[in-house]
Structures are given as C-alpha cells and as structure tokens.
C-alpha cells in the first residue's frame, strides 16, 4: 500500500517534469530512435545484400569451373605454336578416368540463333547440348511439375528440351509449357521442364533464363557438332582446383601434344576461387559496416549523454530548490533515472519499430535491377537490442552521475549554480 502510494506520488512528479521538458525529451528520444534506426538498418541491409550476393554469385552454379580449349603459344615436340585445341566428346571419359579430383563433368555444345516455336510464337535463342549432371552443377532447377534432362533422355537421344523461364514466358505466355511440343529448328521437341527464376550475376553465354538445353546426344544428332564448346566440372570436396587444373594441362597436353606449361592452351574460369574472393570482399564490407555502425552508436551515445548532461546542469538550481524544500537525494536521483530510462526505452522501442517498418516496406518493393541486390533486409535482433541497451545505459549513466552529484552538494551550492 505504502509503496504503491509512493510510486503514485513519484509518477505524479515525473509526469510534471516530463511536461516541462517536452522539447528536450523529444530530442533525446529522437537521438536514440535515430541511432537505433541507423545501426539496425545498416545491419539489416548488410544481411540482405550478403544473402543476395551469395545467391547471385551461385546463380551460374556453385563451385563450378568452366574450361575452354585455347590455342598453343609455345612450339612443342616439333609442332609449331598457334595450333587450336578442340575438345572431343570422348575427352569427357578421358578426364573422368585420368583426373581423380574431378567430381561431376559435362561437355557443352552450343548453337546460337536456333528458332524455337510454339503455335504462332517464334523466337531465336541459344541452345546448349549437355549431359544430365549439367543441371545440378549449373543450378538449372526445374519449376514444379517439370524436370531437367535426365539419363534416359540422354541415352535414348530424346528430343527433350529444358527452357529458361524467360524463353518459356516469351513463347508460352501463361500456358504451362511442361509436356507441350515446341519446334526447334523445325524439329519437334517435348518441353520437360522450365527453370525456376534465379539471380545470376555472371555467365559465359548470357543469362540462363534466356536459353534452352537439350541432351548432348540429341544435339550431336541434329547439329552434328564434332567438338565441345566447353566443359563444366566440379571438383571433389577438399580437392584444390589448382591441382585439378595442372592435372588437366598434363592430360590434355599429352593427348593434344602441347606443353603443360602453355597457359594459353586451356582456359579456366574458376568460380570457386572467385567465390572466395567475393567472400573476402564482402567480409571487408561487413567489417566496414560494423565499424560505421559502431561509430554511429558512439555519436548517438554522445548525443544522448550530452542532452542528459546539459539537462542536469540546467536543472541544478531546480535541484537546489527542491532540496531546500526537503527533497531527498533519492527523490532527485530517481527522477532523473526514471526519466533517462523512459527516454531510452521509448527511443529504442520507436527505433526498432521504425526499422522493422522500413525493412518490411522494402520487401514490398518489386526487386529489379540494382534494387535486386539490396535483397530482403532483415532486422538483426541482437544488434538492435544491443544498440538500445547501449544507448539506454549511456543515457542512464550520463543522467545518473550528474544527478547524483547535483543532489550530493549542499543545496546552497546547487542554488548558486549558474
């Protein structure tokens, strides 16, 4: 009873103080809200961007290497330099047999300007001929209801085609393409699947959304290409991609008779290595963002401390007056404390609320072009809560010490304070 009564008295006093300090309170709340929003959003976007970058960089495929044949630049065993190297279909088995580090591999034939028709719609696109393992390596995931080229398609040289989602949309519109017949250079093919939409920030033949894939066996049957345009392969876990490269130079060097040190004979695009670089770059960006976040926190903290400090200086005379009227030290300190706590928690609450609102609002914006890379910002709760706690603590301490000091001096000194 007595306690409840004391609390009610205290609240009455506090409400009165709040009324008097509207502007200052609003400014402090603003400082904390602002600090919390800045830091929380910085981190939220950092998470979103990181995820998007990861998604995009794995769009072409995760942990794959693209291998092209080049041209010799060194004379070798009596042969002149300047010879073109071309991969033959049987090289795929050669690699499988001779290079232990290779996990999955698929040669790839390409043909540009292939007409694909459905009904009255006709487009001209790139078509690749590949092996069944290609699909998983290159993240060619089928939309529900469809599938990628499988071993059976390959073995029986089926006229099966897997379409990028954009091609499918262009020729089918809203019709479900799976199971439908399209004409590829005038030859009927069955659509077995359509690729799911994905982010892709790199490619070696244009975006995957905009082409079609058929079995390599079928491709050779129709177009008669004697050479692969390139290989796609992945390495076994724990195997260094550089070792595999050296092995490939050795194996192909002895088959096509070029110097294994002739770096222009084979060309590699090592996305594993690239992913590592990207990861490091992003780590750098993240450290930078944490640093900026930390600085923002310090600035917000200084702002809060400053406002609290100035407030108590300004109110030292008032403290003196209250002490002269018989206020206890506890009355004075408690008042400033509660005020600081209230401000900090209210500011933190608003900050988190706004951060959530802003990040959610971002989810609603259609993500296209550069916006796509902002991804879906996610509020990092530990960061948000640590920010609020830090700012509250700063507010608390910067309120507590001057208040305690003001309440500890003689009332006379507090009253004389200018």
């Amino acid at each position, binding site marked *: 009873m007595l306690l409840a009564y004391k609390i009610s008295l205290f609240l009455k006093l506090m409400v009165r103080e709040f009324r008097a300090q509207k502007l200052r309170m609003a400014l402090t709340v603003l400082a904390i809200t602002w600090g919390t929003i800045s830091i929380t959003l910085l981190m939220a976007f950092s998470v979103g961007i990181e995820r998007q970058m990861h998604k995009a960089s794995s769009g072409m495929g995760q942990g794959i290497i693209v291998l092209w044949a080049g041209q010799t630049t060194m004379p070798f065993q009596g042969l002149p330099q300047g010879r073109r190297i071309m991969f033959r279909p049987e090289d795929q088995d050669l690699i499988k047999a001779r290079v232990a580090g290779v996990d999955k591999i698929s040669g790839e034939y390409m043909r540009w300007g292939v007409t694909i028709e459905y009904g009255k719609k006709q487009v001209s696109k790139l078509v690749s001929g590949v092996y069944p393992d290609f699909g998983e390596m290159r993240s060619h995931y089928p939309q529900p209801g469809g599938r990628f080229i499988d071993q059976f398609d390959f073995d029986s040289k089926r006229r099966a085609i897997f379409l990028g989602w954009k091609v499918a949309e262009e020729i089918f519109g809203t019709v479900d393409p799976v199971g439908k017949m399209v004409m590829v250079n005038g030859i009927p093919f069955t659509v077995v699947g359509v690729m799911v939409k994905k982010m892709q920030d790199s490619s070696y033949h244009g975006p995957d959304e905009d082409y079609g894939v058929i079995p390599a066996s079928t491709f050779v049957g129709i177009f008669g290409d004697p050479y692969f345009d390139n290989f796609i392969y992945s390495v076994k876990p724990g195997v260094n991609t550089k070792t595999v490269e050296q092995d490939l130079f050795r194996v192909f060097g002895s088959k096509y008779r070029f110097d294994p040190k002739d770096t222009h004979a084979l060309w590699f695009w090592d996305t594993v290595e690239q992913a590592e670089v990207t990861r490091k770059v992003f780590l750098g960006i993240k450290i930078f963002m944490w640093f900026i976040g930390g600085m923002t926190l310090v600035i917000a903290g200084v702002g809060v401390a400053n406002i609290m400090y100035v407030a108590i200086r300004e109110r030292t005379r008032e403290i003196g007056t209250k002490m002269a009227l018989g206020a206890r*030290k506890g009355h004075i300190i408690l008042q400033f404390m509660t005020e600081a706590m209230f401000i900090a928690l209210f500011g933190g609450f608003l900050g988190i609320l706004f951060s959530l609102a802003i990040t959610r609002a971002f989810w609603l914006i259609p993500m296209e072009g550069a916006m796509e890379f902002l991804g879906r910002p996610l509020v990092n709760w530990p960061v948000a809560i640590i920010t609020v706690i830090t700012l509250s603590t700063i507010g608390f301490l910067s309120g507590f010490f001057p208040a305690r000091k003001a309440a500890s001096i*003689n009332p006379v000194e507090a*009253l004389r304070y200018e």
Partner: protein
Amino acid sequence: MNNNGHLISMKNVTKVYKTGKIHVDALRGVDLDIGRGEFVAIIGPSGSGKSTLMNIMGCLDMPTTGEYHLDGRPVANMGIHQLSSIRNKKIGFIFQNFNLLAYATTFENVELPLIFAGKPGAYRKQRVMECLENVGLANWAEHKPTELSGGQMQRAAVARALANEPDIILADEPTGNLDSKSGGEIIDLFEQLNELGRSVVTITHDMNIAHRCHRIIRIMDGLIESEKHNGNGRDKNLTQD
C-alpha cells in the same frame, strides 16, 4: 543548557569558503539564539555574511566550526535524510528570486513540499488551497508563475514555505525584487504569521521593514555587530550571551 528552549541556538559559528587558494571568512564566530515566536530582521552591508548565516540556520549549508542546535538537536550530527526532513518540515525557506518551478502551476509549486513529505493526495489538495487562501492566491492556483506578478510570485513562495506548517520561516531578502507595495504585503503576511506564533527571520536592506520586526540583528564582517529590540514585540527570549 544548549538551547534553553530556543528554536535556534548558535555558539561561535564560523564559515570559511574555500575557492582555490582564496579563503573567505564569511562568518567569524557568531553567537545567536532565536526563540519560538520571534520576528527577527537581519541587516548589514552586502557581503557581511547575512545569507551565509541564514543558509546555516536553514540547514542548506553547514558551519565550518561552532555549534548549531535546531530545536535542541545538534545539526552537525544529522545525516542527510534527517537534514532533508528538517528542511521539509521544520523550516520554510523564502528566496529573493522566488525559485518557483517555472513549468509547474502555483498549486503544484505549493504542493511540492507536501509531496516530499509523502502526504496523501486529498490532504495535499486541501492544504495547498488553505495556504493559497492565506496568501490571497486561491484564484491563481492553476496559473504558471510566469503569469503572476512579482508580488504574487513571492506570495506563492510564502504559501509553499507554509505548506508543512514549519516552526520557522527564513526569508533571504524576500522583498529585494519587489516594489515597495508588494514588499509591504509580504511583510504584512510575515506579521500575520508571527502573530499566529510562528518564528520569522528575514534578511533585509530596507530599514522600514527592519523596524516592523521586533528584533534587529546587524551583521558586520561575519560578526554580530549589534542587536536592537523594537520593544513592541512578543519576543521574550532575548539573547543573553
């Protein structure tokens, strides 16, 4: 022995202010007794130590040496809570510059000592209105100090000083910021309070005001230089050191 029933009893009280290397002897050995129901004026030139003396009386400051008994109890031995309680209940302090909280209404200003005393709401309401009526400000309860005249502000301060029915009113140049008419009204109030038995001590530069008090104490260079009784007072407990 120490107080002889005196409300205020000082023996050889000194006060030294130290600011850096400079020492100011503001009080240099003051002996003073003030009894219940006295009406005292403290006069003296600027810087003579009047405010210093009154702050010590009001437990807003502590003497450097010497003894001060308030209502028979040695102030030196009191803890901060006891001092707060004494300032709250035994003493009503009035300042030259009013020291009202600008953001609070007159009512709320007068209510403040009652809140610090932990009085219940209903009692506070009734008591605040009583005090405001005493000083003629009942109609100004809901106004802010900025809406009051100087005289009204000082009357609000008097009401605030009276809230907890203190034994003694201490006023440091209460009329210093007022015109003579408003100042006169404050002294009228003091007279009324004194007639009801309350001790009143006021510092003043105005001899007209001093002469309305029953006892005049002149301070000079930190010492009581002379004392004079106006003879018409109710004070019977004269100092006899």
